[in-house]
């Protein structure tokens, strides 16, 4: 094993966007001012994303946009970027994923949360990528992005939570550099729906996607989950993705999409 494997992992935890943000650093700047500054910068990116996109804040750009008070031109450019990603996801999932949903009162609500979390965490990793000789694994509420610089260093070992018993894991993914996202209802109840029907999908307990980008790992995990019984089949069509579907009966399917 190389030097990195013997290096201690330094962990940081804070909360933003209503979820815990966990960071593991190892290497040169794991426990010094430069590492802590990068962590503070990562958290600032997430707080900024929350202020811009939160549907829980009446004063966020997205809330005001959704109410028709402002137009897209009045929003920062990342709002358009996220909405474009949402549209791309809707198209690629044949409508199962959609940032627009019908609210309780029958009106269409703009809710890009399904895009924002992975996208924001991916952006938050940028200051961590600037740390020389330092590996990181950044988790935003269970969706994570990792980097390993030394080819001889051990990969990050990512446990995939058991959706039936969140105190346990069903699988391990060794990830040197890449992203892992999981969608399911273990912690928040049946809040994920198939946008085509407005109903929670049946038959699937969780979907985990491994990809090069957390933005797309997160989108694909949600889009696959929304498709219920078709989750694994659809995920198997996604270039460069691998993943794990845990079904409602506890059985599992491992999926490898086609090469990019």
């Amino acid at each position: 094993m190389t030097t990195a494997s013997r290096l201690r992992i330094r962990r940081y935890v804070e909360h933003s966007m209503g979820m815990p943000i966990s960071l593991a650093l190892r290497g040169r700047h794991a426990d010094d001012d430069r590492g802590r500054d990068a962590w503070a910068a990562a958290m600032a990116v997430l707080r900024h994303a929350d202020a811009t996109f939160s549907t829980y804040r009446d004063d966020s750009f997205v809330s005001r946009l959704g109410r028709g008070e402002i137009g897209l031109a009045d929003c920062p450019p990342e709002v358009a970027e996220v909405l474009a990603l949402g549209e791309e996801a809707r198209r690629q999932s044949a409508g199962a994923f959609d940032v627009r949903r019908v609210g309780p009162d029958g009106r269409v609500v703009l809710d890009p949360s399904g895009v924002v979390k992975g996208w924001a965490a991916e952006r938050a990793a940028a200051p961590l990528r600037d740390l020389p000789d330092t590996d990181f694994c950044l988790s935003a509420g269970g969706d994570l992005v990792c980097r390993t610089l030394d080819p001889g260093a051990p990969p990050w070992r990512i446990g995939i939570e058991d959706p039936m018993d969140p105190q346990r894991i069903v699988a391990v993914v060794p990830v040197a550099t890449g992203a892992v996202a999981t969608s399911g209802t273990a912690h928040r109840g049946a809040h994920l729906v198939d946008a085509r029907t407005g109903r929670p999908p049946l038959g699937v307990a969780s979907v985990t996607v491994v990809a090069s980008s957390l933005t797309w790992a997160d989108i694909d995990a949600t889009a696959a989950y929304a498709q219920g019984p078709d989750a694994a089949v659809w995920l198997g069509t996604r270039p460069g993705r691998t993943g794990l579907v845990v079904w409602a009966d506890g059985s599992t399917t491992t999926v490898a999409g086609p090469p990019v």
Partner: protein
Amino acid sequence: MRRIILWFMGTVSAVVFLFGYSTSTAGPGVVGGQTAVFSSGTSTTGGAASGGTDPNAGSTVTGTVAQTRWGPVQVELTVSGGAITQVSVLQYPDSNGHDRQINSYALPILVRETMDAQGANIDMVSGATVTSRGYLESLQSALDQAGL
């Protein structure tokens, strides 16, 4: 030769080990390749078992070298008390750093008998979105507090 040693401290009755690789020219994110399935009890198939008669010592089973389109892959299992206690990757195509990097696209290793986080020796947990309220009861919280 580099190794990835995957430690399984808990009781694992079967491990499905799948790999995805890309070539260095095909860009990141390429996935596919050889699938190797091992189960305890059938793990001598295609390999040679070594080890003494001491039941506590465990036996090592070395799989045959599987030729994938990205290069050879060889896996070694240590079986003890009817359970796989260790999985070592003896060979995989890692002629350059990029090939190693894209090992991040390897498939999940299924843990047939679920185990707790400590037993599995994991760094982070991926799961359905944990709320700040639920965080204290989460596995990730345990890992963060352990500081390992």
